[in-house]
């Protein structure tokens, strides 16, 4: 039985009819077409589905859509403004932090969330900040470099 929830996604108000057992990932992807949020494992291990909920990065596969009722969500589609891409997006491009790109949206949102709270993170803090996100292509070094370059 579907229920209506209200939430803010990328500064836009939404009313969505969701199943009680539907995850936030599935709602974003299949109800709203926000497919930048990726499904890598669906059990909270890989971080590909990371979104920012009320300022905190969460695995959206572990959040029921109903739990997002009344919340404020930022997905990868919400990072770019009229002023252009967010600095962390530019840094990922410039530092070669992207190979296949599948983990990229989640990595960027974890990084953004870290930088919002701590604009000048140390390498150790960066590592902690993206420790919930798996990447199988890059070996992480260039991702760390990208986050570091925005911090400076």
């Amino acid at each position: 039985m579907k229920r209506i929830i209200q939430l803010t996604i990328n500064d836009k108000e939404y009313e969505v009819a969701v199943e009680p057992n539907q995850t936030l990932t599935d709602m974003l992807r299949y109800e709203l077409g926000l497919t930048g949020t990726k499904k890598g494992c669906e059990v909270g291990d890989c971080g590909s589905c990371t979104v920012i909920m009320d300022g905190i990065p969460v695995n959206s596969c572990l959040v029921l859509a109903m739990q997002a009722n009344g919340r404020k969500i930022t997905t990868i589609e919400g990072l770019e403004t009229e002023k252009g891409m967010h600095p962390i997006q530019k840094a990922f491009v410039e530092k070669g932090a992207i190979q296949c790109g599948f983990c990229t949206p989640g990595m960027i949102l974890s990084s953004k969330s870290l930088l919002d709270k701590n604009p000048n993170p140390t390498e150790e803090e960066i590592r902690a900040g993206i420790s919930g996100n798996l990447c199988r292509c890059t070996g992480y070094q260039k991702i760390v470099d990208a986050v570091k370059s925005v911090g400076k």
Partner: protein
Amino acid sequence: MEPRDVFLHVRGEAVFVDDALLPAEHLFAAIRTSHVAHGHVRSLDIAPAMAVPGIYEVFTARDIPGENQVGKTILDEPLLAESEVHFVGQPLAIVVGESAEAARRAARAIQVEIDPLPAIYDVRQAFAEGSLIAPPRTFSSGDVESAWEQCSVVVSGTVESGSQEHVYMETQSAFALPTDRGGVKVVSATQSPSMVQLVVARILGLPMHEVEVEVPRLGGGFGGKEDQATHWAAMAALAAWRLKKPVKLVLTRHEDMTMTGKRHPYLSDYKLGLDAEGHMLAYEVTFYQNGGAVADLSPAILERSLFHATNAYAIPHVKAVGISCRTHLPPNTAFRGFGGPQALFVLECAIFKAAEALGVEPREIQKRNLLQDGDAFPYGARVERCRQRRCWDVAEQKYNLQAGLKEVRQYNGRNAWRKKGLALMPICFGISFTSTFLNQAGAFVNVYVDGSVGISTSAVEMGQGVNAKIQEVAARIFSIRPERIKLETTSTSRIANMPPTAASTGADLNGHATRLACLDIVERLKDAAARCLGKNAPHEIEIRDEAVYASGEATELTWEKLVNLAYFDRVSLCAQAHCATPDIFFDRDTNKGNPFAYYAYGTALVEASLDCLRGTCSIDAVRVVHDFGRSLHPLVDLGQMEGGIVQGVGWMLLEEVMHDADGRLLTDTLATYKIPDIHSIPGEIQVHFLEDAENPPGIFQSKTVGEPPFLYGIGAYFALLQAMKAFRPDAHIPFSSPMTPEKVLLALYPGDRPV
């Protein structure tokens, strides 16, 4: 990577298979698999599945209109099992419903009764019982039998190397749409579009031209989508074709891990003989490859193990035997290195043991035996432009090996419970498909009247940056801005009979094909320019940085004007070209030939730290000198290097695939199967591009990079062993990867003896 692509990725706009917008009417498929490793299917009752709300249809083997066969060279693999099952996770039925959830629920509801038969998981048992995928192969040179007597030291033993799950972040996925002609279009996350096309045509009983396969991009492949993306594409195609509706099939991570094969575990017996100075004289090795239940690519992977049995070393007397064993595990398959890493690991273990016997360090044996020009491999090819020794020497100097060794000694002297180890890892990897016929590719280049360019090739972009390299090739040949050039998706309707994007050949084969096609168009453009300008011969025309020059003088023509002018002059602005790697051959009867266009060389210094109380190891540094030729795209190459090293270290130290006694995968989620996360990567990776390293067979003198970096990861194992020996010189350490903390502790504290 194509610049535009990376912008799509950071905006979340890049469309992977599961992201594509499908017609509203589309359906979802799910798979019912075997829960038994080996058995007779007594009954398969689909009625309970059909009773689940929202279910359209259930397909089993008898619903396949064509041939129920997905095998490649050896036709031993049904798409859907019929009367027998051969591994846990083998597909039995496809359920199609209005949601993925309903389809999965229905798949679980199918009643399957299987009478178990004896199952084999162990390669020795498989070999003893004659359960082989193909007859054993032997590569040999010299005379091993008579060489042993010349040796001062002969060591022998057994080496185990573990499996490895690919963990491409995008799971296996495909969707299929019926066409109005009674064919099907399949969008598939595959490294082998033509293979998917061939198999779908075979399954549906259609000519290949009724099946179009398109690949937008892959969220990682690493070999896991070379042969094993085909099944899901074929299942989606079967369902779509039968129901005349679009059907999507995306595996969950758990399904992907349980249904697909992985890197082959190997069990290998070795015997290595050396003279008193440490020259390796004779090497005998038998590789027992755990192929799993069907052939897949196992024979080809085993062949590469034989090619790389001697890695970077010249050994005069060699006998390498490869035995591909059929077991009741999911079919193991291609994974970065394709059998090469398993072979290199065995020889490095043998060298480690020989060093102990000779009372020297392994690096002394390694260095003494490095390949140089004129040396021959056991399969007869001679080494040319060999840079094995140069890479080693540069690495020794640049990274100051002697100082590093001293530091490690001092550290170990100061610390009782923490030890460091340092190992060198030279690598040599042949570049080409070892099946010679696969070394061909096509490119199709369109120049549009506004001067923009679209390029289709056989290459599939999976993060390895092949599109960026092809774009660079075209930009150089046309001498235009790269932004003008777009790399199209990979489609069987634009390029026929493609090889898989594999064996590190993507950039070379498709780069060369693109180069040839672009050169054709440039010739036509020069003719057109000469006609227009009226004073010059075509060979006096030059296109440089978007401008047209005649006899070195600037003209009023630009790239855009020239293209436009050529169009009105009715000149074709499209070209197709085909590339076939020259001068390679291999005779599978004699096992001799020259199968590789060239070799990748390099050396890594790997430093490990061991916590001797916890058994945990961290890699402090991996420092590499690698021969990239003249790198076509240093940022892409560096990314391949770093990613490959981390994957290799994961295979050696961290990633452990485990099954229970009934052949069920225990490590079936990313919670129980650990790939390197940010905390388990090397503290530092340094990469030095070897200078003055032209490579004539490569595209623009470059060398391709994909697989070789993985091999450096093997050095991590031996750096760890050095640290373990520093703690306990008398430790008996088995040659068994991955060397997990558990195995480290068992070796450091044998029995129940407290320290």
